[in-house]
């Protein structure tokens, strides 16, 4: 009787073990959809499905609206709303479907192993061995290597050099300026600028006659101040007839047009009459030959010497006092 009980107990244990094995979660065995599954939630959600249907229909409506609006040449706002709402409704439909309608699962997956070099004999080491094996039998390694290096460098240079076709060499093109003695100043419409047209506080953009206005060096800004306030260096004493001054309009910092003239009528006077660049606020004192009084510019604004010709028009009395526009590495200021 005890032997039978013992056998029965053992049989029970075997059965329980078998059942456990059969019905428990399988981790690595098997190829079915159970592999790696941690959690599954599949209860159907009628409200969610209904929501998705509604959203899809709304999307269709909005898209149809977009087509109709396009045909009717509606405003950009209507067009944008149409296609935008259609896409957003579709987005909502997709998200709700993904989160509440389709099969919900949380799964687990194993990552591939990337061997660490410290881990001993690795695939990486094997790769190196395979690679090196290809060089078995080579005798003059260093010579071959050096020759390959020279050839590679030369070929690399040969490949890069045609890039130079993209543009001109620097040469004196960057320094070029149309201004010289006798060149007349003209306004935006190409008409000469009579000196009498300017009064104290005037501010005008002018160009070298006959030159493309877009050329950086061509544009100057002309202002008129009280001649008694001028503090020009002695060699420029004659550059400002009647208190009329001209400077290059291109900022010496980063090339924006210096399109701002502040002309104080009464205190606060500091800074005094000045040309200011609206990009980074480099400030050039017109009474002191375009000296930088504030801001990141590293060079004063080039000044154009002026004189008044027989007809009373403004003409240049010489070239600009410096290079136009932003400096470049290696430029020498004359």
């Amino acid at each position: 009787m005890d032997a039978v009980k013992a056998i029965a107990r053992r049989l029970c244990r075997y059965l329980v073990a078998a059942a456990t094995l059969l019905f428990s979660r399988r981790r690595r065995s098997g190829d079915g959809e159970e592999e790696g599954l941690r959690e599954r939630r599949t209860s159907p959600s009628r409200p969610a499905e209904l929501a998705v249907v509604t959203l899809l229909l709304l999307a269709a409506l909005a898209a149809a609206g977009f087509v109709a609006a396009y045909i009717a040449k509606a405003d950009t706002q209507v067009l944008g709303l149409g296609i935008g709402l259609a896409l957003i409704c579709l987005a909502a439909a997709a998200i709700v479907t993904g989160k509440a309608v389709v099969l919900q699962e949380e799964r687990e997956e194993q990552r591939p192993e990337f061997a660490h070099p410290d881990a001993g004999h690795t695939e990486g080491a094997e790769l190196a061995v395979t690679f090196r094996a290809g060089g078995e039998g080579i005798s003059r390694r260093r010579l071959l290597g050096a020759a390959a290096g020279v050839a590679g460098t030369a070929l690399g240079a040969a490949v890069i050099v045609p890039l130079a076709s993209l543009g001109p060499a620097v040469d004196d093109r960057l320094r070029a300026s149309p201004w010289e003695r006798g060149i007349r100043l003209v306004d935006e419409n190409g008409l000469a600028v009579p000196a009498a047209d300017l009064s104290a506080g005037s501010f005008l953009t002018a160009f070298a006659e006959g030159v493309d206005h877009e050329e950086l060096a061509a544009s100057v800004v002309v202002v008129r101040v009280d001649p008694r306030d001028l503090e020009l260096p002695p060699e420029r004493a004659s550059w400002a007839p009647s208190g009329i001054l001209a400077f290059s309009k291109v900022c010496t910092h980063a090339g924006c047009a210096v399109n701002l003239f502040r002309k104080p009528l009464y205190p606060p006077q500091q800074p005094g009459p000045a040309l200011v660049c609206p990009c980074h606020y480099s400030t050039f004192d017109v009474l002191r030959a375009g000296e930088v009084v504030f801001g990141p510019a590293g060079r004063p604004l080039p000044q154009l010497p002026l004189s008044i010709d027989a007809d009373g028009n403004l003409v240049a009395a010489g070239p600009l006092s410096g290079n136009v526009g932003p400096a470049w590495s290696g430029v020498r200021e004359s």
Partner: protein
Amino acid sequence: MTEGPERMLAVAAAALALGAGVLWLAPAVAQPGESRASSGEKQNVALVDRGHRLFQEECSSCHGFDARGVPDQGPSLRGTGAAATDFYLRTGRMPLSYPGQVPTRARPRYSERQIQALVAYVASFGGPRIPAVHPERGSSTEGQQLFTSHCAGCHSITAEGGVATGVAAPTLKDSTSTQVAEALRMGPYLMPRFNRELIDRHGVDSIARYVADIQQPDDAGGWGIGHIGPVPEGMVAWFLAAAALLLTARLIGESRRGGG
């Protein structure tokens, strides 16, 4: 710095010269608020008288009892003319709270009648009349070109105002055409002066037209977000779009780390 009075005299002299030129132009038109310069001697005298009394009470502490200015307080107003007075009073830039304050646009302190009286009083010393502006006669293309060349450097291309060293150029969103013309011809405070030779009457009309139009810009693309360009655009990109997309991401993904 006590160059004040001499400079003001120089300015007044220049203004007088300018005034002579302006007087050559068409007479002041009867726009609302402009001084009626020649509608009866008796009325005019009464107005000037009233303006004189008002001036004594309100303006003389800085500009002097005879409008010749007070050193270090305020410049002489002789020869500055109706245009300047009209501009400063109507834009509320005068009176200042204290000498040396930066004039900024504000609600006008004086009533219509008071302004007319003060304008008449200062105008009695000579100087430029209030200019006649006809924006409808201006060309919007010429206005765009002139404004870009002469004004955008300080006031920005959409007339939203701007910044420079030691100054903030005001927005022109509230400016009337007359005020635009007055400011152009006067060159108030730090602004350059544009005389008739540089910008003729038609040019002023065009600029006034541009300013009037730009006060309601063409927002074909939708909400204009201030018409100052990439700064509000960047703010919208971050605080509207990126925020909305972050929200969407939160809705899609899980937020508890290791949760779910």
